[in-house]
């Protein structure tokens, strides 16, 4: 029954025009970034390396597909939560608003299974978005700009990663980025369980992300204690895969915090959804 419901959710998601909005938005955004880099990428690189190039010269193709993919990922990963929430925030509340939740819940499928199927479908949709971003950023980036070593600018300096050392880092980076977006997806589905209108959970999800990001950015002592536990703090953990040496401890910590968020949010959703009276 669970997988039948998951299949149903896929059909619904694929039939909704708004589901393609995310893919379209990513395509347009990545297209714009790739175009900008193709036209003026060298000067962007020069801006980064100018401080070093007073003494040193960099030989080789700095602006290559690997760097382009990194720039795309860095620029877009903060916007993709909106695209994720746009679809996942509607999964439960949209059905409540349209009345179909009533129809679904008079069927023998358990509420837990129904909600889990929505979480799974939301996760698959999020995965599709991240894979599409990966295809556009990494594959199209490499087709247009070629391959090469990846030069990454971190707050503690430059890291130059060898070409053969980059693909697994992207795989890891995208996996962690997926997990971060999955937390967003879980949050918006959770909020969706508490609402009977489609827009509310989407707006609240974004508001929470913005609020947590601000708390994470503000240099206020009061926030120091909570900052490491905010999921938004770990949304950029994919970058850790591009550090040398690999900060495995930090990555694992981020993964645990993101997973704990997901477990709590799913648990809360299941508890509320199972107790909820359907009066719409």
């Amino acid at each position: 029954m669970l997988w039948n419901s998951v299949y149903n959710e896929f059909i619904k998601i694929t039939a909704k025009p708004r589901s393609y909005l995310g893919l379209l938005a990513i395509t347009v955004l990545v297209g714009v970034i790739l175009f900008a880099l193709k036209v003026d990428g060298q000067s962007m690189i020069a801006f980064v390396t100018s401080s070093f190039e007073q003494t040193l010269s960099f030989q080789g193709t700095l602006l290559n597909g690997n760097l382009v993919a990194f720039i795309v990922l860095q620029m877009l990963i903060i916007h993709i939560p909106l695209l994720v929430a746009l679809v996942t925030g509607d999964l439960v509340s949209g059905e409540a608003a349209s009345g179909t939740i009533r129809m679904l819940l008079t069927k023998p499928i358990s509420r837990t299974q129904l909600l889990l199927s929505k979480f799974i479908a939301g996760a698959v949709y999020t995965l599709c978005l991240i894979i599409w971003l990966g295809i556009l950023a990494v594959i199209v980036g490499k087709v247009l700009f070629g391959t090469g070593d990846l030069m990454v600018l971190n707050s503690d300096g430059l890291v130059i990663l060898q070409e053969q050392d980059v693909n697994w880092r992207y795989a890891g980076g995208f996996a962690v980025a997926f997990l971060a977006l999955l937390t967003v997806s879980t949050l918006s589905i959770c909020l969706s369980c508490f609402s009977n209108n489609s827009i509310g959970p989407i707006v609240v999800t974004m508001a929470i992300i913005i609020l947590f990001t601000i708390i994470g950015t503000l240099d206020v002592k009061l926030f120091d204690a909570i900052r490491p536990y905010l999921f938004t703090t770990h949304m950029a953990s994919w970058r850790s895969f591009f550090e040398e040496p690999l900060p495995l401890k930090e990555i694992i910590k981020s993964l645990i915090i993101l997973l704990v968020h997901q477990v709590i949010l799913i648990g809360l959703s299941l508890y509320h959804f199972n107790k909820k009276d359907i009066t719409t």
Partner: protein
Amino acid sequence: MISRFLTLILLGCLPVFAAAQDATAILEQMMAKWNRVKDYAVQVNIKSEIPLIKSFPVKATIYFKQKDQFKMLSKGIAILPKQNFNELPKFLRDKNSYTALITGTEVIQTQKTTVLTVLPIDDSGDLVLLKLWIDPKTDLLLKSQSTTRSNGTISANYEYGSQIAFGLPDKMIFTVEVKKFKIPKGLATDINRTSSSDTGKPSPKNGKITITFADYQLNKGIKDEVFRN
């Protein structure tokens, strides 16, 4: 009175003229070795240890053809000193652009070397001072140090092996003076960082770039197309 004074000046300048002539000779002998090389291709391994830059050794191929055609092909990103090893022969070949003086002797790698100080004639150029440590017995350059207005001081140590007869090194170790690099803040967004980064630690002032040369292909003819971009 005047003639005695002029004699004194001339006598005082004599050692300088003599040193200049000797320095030129030493340079010419050193460069004579280089001049026997019409072209070469060599595999290099570049290892950079620069503060604030983490990188892996990079393999590359260097092509050189007289008089000053130079090309490095590397699949990866290689970090070289701004004044790299190609600049020095290029500068020394133009004998009218500098004055060379012997300014002492020094032991480098257990070898007694003559220290040459090379002063550019054009004092508006970037190069301010060049010092060369040359082994007078083998006419090999063992160390160089260039001071430029924009890049500070870069020194290089040379080790020889297979191509000693041509004055081509097997290893070069550059020491570059690293200014405090500035990271553009907006671009380095480690928002996941909850622990302090390494930027607070005092970073060393010098960076080291080691280039190891192997498999020299000397005077085998290299087409000009190789040097085109």
